C-alpha cells in the first residue's frame, strides 16, 4: 500500500518543518492507520462478494461467508455470464451486460450531444428565446426523476415506449446537468476566439465543429465518465420500463435476483449472484479508476 508517490500536494510540501519533531512520527502512523481502515471499509464488502463468488452455494449455506477463496470462481462467473435460465429466466449475463453498455453509452452520448448544442445556442447567440430556454432547462434540476416517477411512467406507457431502448434512455435525458456544465465551460472560453473565427469568415456551425468541440475534449471526456456511470447504474427507471427480460440491464437484473431469493425455497445460488454483482460493478469501477483525473475533474466541475 505504501507506494512511493511522485505526486506532492500543496500541504505535503509545507510539512517538513513539522516532521522533524519526534512526536509527529506517531501521528503519521495514526494517519496511515485511519486511511488503511477507511480503505478496508471500502474494500472488504466487495472482497467478500468475490470470495463468495468462488464457492459452491451449499458450502456458503453451511459455512457462511468466508475470507478464503474456493474452487468455483470460474464456474460461477461462467454460469453468471453464459448460463440461461436460473433466476432471470430466459436471458444470460452477456445479454444484460450488452444492455447495460447500451444504456450507459447511449445515455452518455445523448446527454453530451443534447446539452452541448443547447449550451452552444444559449451562450453564443443573441436571442431572447435563449433566456426562456435556459430557464426552462434549468428548472429541471429542481425535480429528480424519482419524485415524478409514477406520472413519468404513465406518459411513457401512453406513448407506447415501454420495453424499448428509447423509452429506457430518452426520459433519463430530461435534466439540465450536462447543459449547465457546458454552459459554464463555454462562458470561460475567451471571446477573442469567436472574433477571430468571424474575421476568418467562419460561420457558427464551422466555429462549433472546428474550434469549440476540439477545445472541449477534456470536458467531454470528463462528463462522459460521469454520465456513463450514472446511466449504467440506473435502477428504478429500468425496473419500471423493462418487463421483458431481453432488455434487462445488469443492475435491473439485481432486482430479479432479490425476488428469486425472497421467494425461492431452495438454496439461493449465492456464488452466481455475487459473480453477477461483480460483473455489474466492474466496467464503471474500471473506468473511474483508469480515468481518475478526468473523472474527478468532471465531478468537481459539474457540481459547481
Amino acid at each position, binding site marked *: 500500500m505504501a507506494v512511493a508517490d511522485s505526486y506532492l500536494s500543496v500541504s*505535503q510540501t509545507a510539512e517538513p518543518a513539522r516532521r522533524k519533531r519526534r512526536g509527529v512520527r506517531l501521528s503519521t502512523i495514526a494517519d496511515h492507520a485511519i*486511511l488503511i481502515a477507511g480503505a478496508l471499509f471500502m474494500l472488504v464488502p466487495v472482497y467478500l462478494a468475490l470470495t463468495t463468488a468462488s464457492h459452491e452455494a451449499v458450502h456458503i449455506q453451511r459455512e*457462511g461467508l468466508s475470507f478464503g477463496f474456493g474452487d468455483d470462481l470460474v464456474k460461477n462467473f461462467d454460469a453468471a455470464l453464459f448460463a440461461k435460465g436460473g433466476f432471470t429466466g430466459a436471458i444470460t449475463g452477456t445479454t444484460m451486460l450488452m444492455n447495460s453498455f447500451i444504456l450507459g453509452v447511449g445515455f452518455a452520448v445523448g446527454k453530451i450531444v443534447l446539452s452541448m448544442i443547447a449550451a*452552444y445556442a444559449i451562450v453564443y447567440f443573441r436571442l431572447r428565446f435563449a433566456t426562456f430556454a435556459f430557464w426552462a432547462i434549468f428548472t429541471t434540476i429542481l425535480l429528480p426523476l*424519482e*419524485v415524478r416517477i409514477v406520472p413519468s411512467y404513465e406518459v411513457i406507457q401512453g406513448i407506447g415506449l415501454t420495453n424499448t431502448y428509447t423509452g429506457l434512455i430518452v426520459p433519463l435525458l430530461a435534466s439540465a446537468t450536462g447543459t449547465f456544465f457546458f454552459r459554464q465551460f463555454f462562458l470561460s472560453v475567451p471571446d477573442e476566439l469567436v472574433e477571430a473565427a468571424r474575421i476568418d469568415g467562419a460561420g457558427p456551425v464551422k466555429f462549433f465543429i472546428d474550434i469549440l468541440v476540439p477545445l472541449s475534449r477534456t470536458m467531454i471526456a470528463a462528463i462522459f465518465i460521469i454520465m456513463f456511470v450514472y446511466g449504467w447504474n440506473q435502477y428504478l427507471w429500468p425496473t419500471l420500463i423493462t418487463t421483458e427480460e431481453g432488455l434487462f440491464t445488469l*443492475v435491473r437484473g439485481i*432486482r430479479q435476483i432479490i425476488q428469486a431469493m425472497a421467494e425461492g425455497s431452495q438454496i439461493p445460488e449465492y456464488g452466481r449472484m455475487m459473480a453477477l454483482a461483480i460483473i455489474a460493478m466492474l466496467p464503471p469501477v474500471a473506468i473511474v479508476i483508469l480515468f481518475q483525473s478526468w473523472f474527478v475533474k468532471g465531478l468537481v466541475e459539474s457540481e459547481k
Partner: protein
Amino acid sequence: MKRSQFSHISLPILLLVPQLIIIGVFFYWPAWRALHSSFYLEDPFGFGSQFVGMANYTRLFTSAEYMKVARFTLFFTALVTFLALAISLLLAVKADKVIRGAKTYRTLLMWVYAVAPPVAGLVGVMLFDQNIGIITEFFAFLGYDYRLGVSYADTALAMIVVSVWIQIPVNFIFFLSGLQSIPRHVREAAMIDNPSGFRRFWEVTFPLLAPTAFFLVVINITYSLFDTFGVIDTLVKNNPASNPMTLVYKVFVDGFRGNDIGGSSAQSVVLMVLVLALTIFQFRLLERRIHYA
C-alpha cells in the same frame, strides 16, 4: 453572457429544440400530471376520476403510517448525511496530509463511487443475511440476534450502513479537492501561528472548508432522500411490509403496488416542494459563496 455572439435566429432555435422537446414531454408533462392528479381520486378499476380538492393531502398528513415513514426518512437522512460527511472529512484530511501512498489511498477511497446502489444493497443483503451473513455472525458473537428484513431496527441499520458506504467517495473527493485548493501561504501561516494540528484544523482549515461542507450537506440530503432507492428496495427484499422505508420508496409502493394514484401524486408533490426548498437554500448559499470568495 458573451460579448460577441452570432446573430442567427433559426440555428440556435434548431439547436435548442431537441432538448426542449425532451424536457417538455418527459419532465413538464409528467410534473404537471402529478400536480393535477394529486387533486383527483382515481377509480381503482380505472373508470375515470373525481375532483377531491385537498383530500389526498389531508389524508396524507393525517395518516399515521405516512407520518411514521416521514419520521424515519428524517432520521435516516440526518444520520446518513452526518456519518457520510464525518467519515469522509476525516479521511480527506488524512489523505491530504500523508506523503507516502497519497495517490493509492485516493484511489482506494473513491472507486466505490461507481458501484450502483442496488448492487451495494445486494452485497449488503449477503453481509447482513440471517444464515450466512458475516455481520450477523458478529452480532451473534456479541449475543445479539440480528434479523434483516424482520426486525425494523435491524433493517434500518443495514440501510444506513450501506447508504453511507456508497456516499463516502463523493464527499471524500469534494473535501479533498477543497482542502487542496487552500493556498499554500495560508497553510504555512497557519502552521507558524498554530503548531497544534487539531486546533489548526478547527480554527483555520475547517472555516475555509465551510463552503464545500455546506454544499455537501445539501448534496447528501438529496442523496439520502432520492438516490438510496436501490439500497432500500434490495434490503427490504421486495417486501416492505414491516420494514422501514423512505418517502420516495413510499411513492413507488403506493403508486405501483397500492394503485393509489391520487395519494402517490400528492406524495410526489410534497417531495417536489421539499426539493424546491432545498434547491433554493443551496442557491442562496452559492450566491454567498460568489460574493465572498
